[in-house]
């Protein structure tokens, strides 16, 4: 086929142009397309995995509009210089100063602020509000459990997840791209600090409630905090609440002395069933039952009433250090 086509082409070329005024354009298969694409793909593959390009390097990028839209999107009024400071990492500010010094620009002319101060402020606000919120939402959980849940909410992973989904990733001035999760978490703290500076600490509290506390929605609290030594803890709680001595009893078993043994144990106090659990041996089943009883006593079962995220905590109930 290609031979025929080339012959036809040669004939067409060899034929003298009769009317010199019109030039016939020839249409044919572009046979260079596929080899070129193949070569380009080969080169891309040879270069290996490339780093993602920051969005700020594009032509259509206006940092001021982005900052403005960031606040408006979250229904908050930020002071833009403060917000920009919140997005500037300390390492980046140092790098910029270093670059200015190398270029011979006099110092103390333009000082670039960094977000470390705002971040420490934000840490205080977030921690205080989350502790107060948990105190209100899970009043029966002991302080150890509340601290565990608070530290989950304030962990770097959770904060980084929240921060990326607020669209802060592209706005951060940082030496590395994409920014690390520590950077993202610190930036979120700084944003909270900037918000409290721009529109008051109440707005900052609401921000924490709406974006960080809501991460608890539909979460299994047992995955976040499981009491260690549940039987001992249950004994203490029962004496505190005067429920009587907790007593594990066998409710049923099957497959005894086999590999697939299963025991069903219930925990009673004063002839009242507190909780039940399964296990492959008696000890494990008892512990599971104790955890179940504790969940019921602490009101942190997965079928508990959902968290109230419309809760308005008064500022005097939040203890800011």
């Amino acid at each position: 086929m290609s031979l025929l086509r080339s012959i036809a082409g040669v004939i067409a070329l060899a034929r003298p142009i009769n009317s010199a005024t019109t030039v016939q354009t020839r249409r044919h298969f572009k046979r260079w397309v596929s080899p070129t694409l193949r070569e380009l793909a080969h080169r891309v593959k040879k270069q290996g995995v490339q780093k993602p390009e920051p969005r700020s390097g594009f032509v259509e990028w206006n940092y001021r509009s982005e900052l403005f839209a960031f606040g408006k999107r979250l229904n908050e009024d930020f002071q833009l210089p403060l917000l920009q400071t919140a997005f500037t990492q300390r390492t980046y500010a140092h790098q910029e100063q270093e670059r200015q010094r190398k270029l011979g620009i006099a110092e103390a002319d333009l000082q670039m602020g960094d977000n470390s101060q705002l971040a420490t402020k934000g840490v205080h606000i977030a921690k205080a509000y989350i502790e107060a919120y948990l105190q209100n939402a899970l009043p029966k959980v002991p302080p150890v459990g509340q601290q565990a849940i608070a530290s989950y909410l304030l962990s770097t992973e959770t904060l980084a997840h929240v921060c990326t989904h607020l669209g802060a990733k592209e706005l951060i001035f940082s030496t590395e791209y994409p920014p690390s999760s520590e950077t993202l978490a610190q930036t979120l703290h700084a944003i909270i600090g900037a918000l409290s500076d721009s529109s008051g600490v109440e707005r900052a509290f609401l921000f924490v409630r709406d974006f960080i506390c809501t991460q608890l929605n539909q979460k299994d609290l047992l995955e976040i905090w499981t009491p260690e030594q549940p039987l001992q803890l249950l004994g203490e709680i029962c004496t505190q609440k005067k429920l009587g001595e907790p007593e594990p009893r066998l409710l049923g078993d099957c497959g005894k002395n086999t590999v697939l043994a299963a025991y069903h144990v219930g925990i009673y106090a004063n002839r009242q069933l507190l909780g039940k659990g399964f296990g492959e041996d008696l000890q494990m089943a008892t512990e599971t039952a104790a955890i179940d009883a504790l969940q019921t006593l602490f009101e942190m079962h997965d079928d508990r009433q959902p968290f109230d995220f419309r809760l308005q905590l008064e500022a005097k109930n939040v203890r800011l250090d």
Partner: protein
Amino acid sequence: MSNSHLFLKSGFPRAPLQNGVGRYVCQLQRLTLKFCKNNGSSRGMRDFIENHLVDFAKENPGIVVYVKPRRHRAPVLVGEYLNGDREWLSVRNSTQTEISKWIDLLKTQNGSSSSLRLRKMWHTDVPSIQGPWTPFLLRSPDAHNQTYPTSEASQPLDVPQTATEKLIELFKQQQLEADTVLEQKRAE
């Protein structure tokens, strides 16, 4: 699902960052309108920019709008979402009403819907409120004090009637009938 959707990323309808539980955040963060100033295929886009774009930007201060003229290329809408998705939409030869409808779609979804195949139209983190079934669930109270092996539980559930039993039953029935007939006669 057609063959062209086989290799599409698949997922479930999900609200990112528990959106709407605390407060609603519009997930479209950037919108880029690319168009040509002369070409006929961009006419609807030019009309949209002239008549509606400023109003749109005022109504949605949380969306950054970029307008990018370029020569002799078809008009394009590019939406960027908070979850990092980017949706590219060709609006060649579309009218301005069509373009406003497309922009409304981009504004109301939470990611690039055209690059996601929905496995189901719903999703739940808690598939069962009751919890899983176990053999101990709703067990008869009699079963607790039973010592095995028992003669009752060892019987097959359906023991067919033997021929002898059937004969005995028939005989008893006959006798009963005879007795009733006798009693009726006596009564008369």
